[in-house]
């Protein structure tokens, strides 16, 4: 009999899991442990509307306190977990020890840290949580000089927000193009151009070797000797699964907590969901780790159902989005292993999509300001519908009719 469930990690996955557990009838003791003081909140707006001051903290929360009270979800917030002991089925928190029958780990990720000299100076920020966003926001004002290290989603979204708020913005990217890990060269070029048009200085092939300043960051120095004056720095150079608690407990970890399609870890009483998991993608037939809202939500639901004894597999086509200035990038699927890449539409018209095919079926799409293609693609990818590649570039034909 399952009387106690503990969920560790109060982000997107953790919040979803407790919601689903109660909705699906779990009547035992339900504890949600989170290391931050706030009620569980959404992270995507932290680089966009919240950073821009267009959204208050209150609106970030998934649920307000009455929801947790009404559903008897015990919130242990501002609470760090120091140890999991699978043998006694207990976790050790800052000030107490708690017993579980089932444990769900929704530990998320930690930011990859800059290691160059000066990386500890004041004014250098990462963006992982609300407190980070609040700190960054305090620097944003007209003519403030922002240097952003890393041209991925976090770097470019914060660059767009800072620029819109009047900052002078430079983005330093180590690779030869921005978003090189997540998008095609054509999409990288498009976003690079949009940033330049808005006055963001994008510098690729640029490796940061030192940050200088007396007490506070003053400038960023690159390997080629170039220097960029900075009032503040945002570092977005990737994230790693927060799996140290799990590996210390002896759980199988390898680029994340290794789970099966039922979100079970190598311990039969412990499950994991969200960004921290290395999980099988049934659709793509390989193991993946995703940093994705949809994956966090859906794995959390799957884990909750399986903890309650229903056998449900996690089987999703991943999707992602990014907002930069007035452009929306919508991505569905994973493009690795494609054998054909077809551009639909014209980037100069600001509406286009990049379609990735493998053996005549769509496996991924990057849609720029093109919601129709994106929504159609999600179905085409999931169904593995064979497409007629010759029809795909014709923008007068709907993507779903390119069969």
């Amino acid at each position, binding site marked *: 009999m399952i009387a106690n469930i503990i969920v560790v990690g109060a982000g997107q996955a953790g919040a979803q899991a407790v919601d689903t557990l109660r909705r699906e009838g779990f009547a035992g003791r339900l504890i949600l442990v989170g290391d931050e003081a706030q009620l569980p909140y959404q992270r995507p707006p932290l680089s966009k509307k919240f950073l821009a001051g267009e959204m208050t903290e209150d609106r970030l929360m*998934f649920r307000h306190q009455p929801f947790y009270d009404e559903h008897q979800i015990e919130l242990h917030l501002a609470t760090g977990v120091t140890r999991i002991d699978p043998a006694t089925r207990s976790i050790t928190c800052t000030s107490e020890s708690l017993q579980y029958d089932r444990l769900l780990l929704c530990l998320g990720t930690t930011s990859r840290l800059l290691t160059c000299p000066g990386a500890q100076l004041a004014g250098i920020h990462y963006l992982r949580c609300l407190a980070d966003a609040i700190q960054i926001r305090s620097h944003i004002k007209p003519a403030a000089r922002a240097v952003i290290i890393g041209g991925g989603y976090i770097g470019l979204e914060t660059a767009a927000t800072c620029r819109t708020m009047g900052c002078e913005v430079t983005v330093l990217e180590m690779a030869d193009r921005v978003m090189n890990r997540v998008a095609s060269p054509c999409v990288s070029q498009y976003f690079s151009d949009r940033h330049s048009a808005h006055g963001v200085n994008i510098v690729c092939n640029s490796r940061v070797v030192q940050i200088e300043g007396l007490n506070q960051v003053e400038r960023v120095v690159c390997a080629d000797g170039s220097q960029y004056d900075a009032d503040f720095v945002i570092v977005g150079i990737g994230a790693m699964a927060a799996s140290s608690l799990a590996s210390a407990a002896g759980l199988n970890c390898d680029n994340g907590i290794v789970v099966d399609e039922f979100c079970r870890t190598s311990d039969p009483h412990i499950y994991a969901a969200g960004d921290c998991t290395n999980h099988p993608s049934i659709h793509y037939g390989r193991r993946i780790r995703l940093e994705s*809202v*949809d994956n966090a939500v859906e794995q959390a639901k799957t884990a909750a159902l399986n903890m309650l004894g229903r056998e449900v597999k996690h089987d999703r086509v991943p999707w992602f*989005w990014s907002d930069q200035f007035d452009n929306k990038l919508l991505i569905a699927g994973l493009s690795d292993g494609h054998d054909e890449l077809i551009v639909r539409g014209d980037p100069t018209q600001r509406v286009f999509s990049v379609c990735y095919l493998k053996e005549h079926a769509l496996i991924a799409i990057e849609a720029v*300001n093109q*919601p129709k293609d994106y929504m159609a693609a999600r179905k085409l990818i999931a169904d593995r519908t064979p497409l007629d590649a010759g029809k795909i570039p014709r923008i007068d034909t709907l993507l779903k009719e390119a069969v």
Partner: protein
Amino acid sequence: MPRIVFIDANSRREVLATSGISLMEVARQNQIEGILAQCGGACACATCHVYVAPQWMDQLPAREDMEQGMLENAWEPKDNSRLSCQITVSEALDGLEVTIPERQG
């Protein structure tokens, strides 16, 4: 505070809303089933789809291209389909009625 009515196959619920937030947020605050809003209001997922009572359609600002494109391939779109994250609640919408589709996505 404007009153909003959410209707699904089994029930009809009237809730009091806060002006200035989105209809999707009103649904979420009131635990309305069937509005998933996975992207949290970024107009990126089409899982907060509602059918607006026809007499209210003219009271709402027109759909922008992004919402329009998302809705065309949402589950069973109709002329009165809207994404609830794109509708800002105000006193002018007091009494607004929306019906929740059988499914989202």
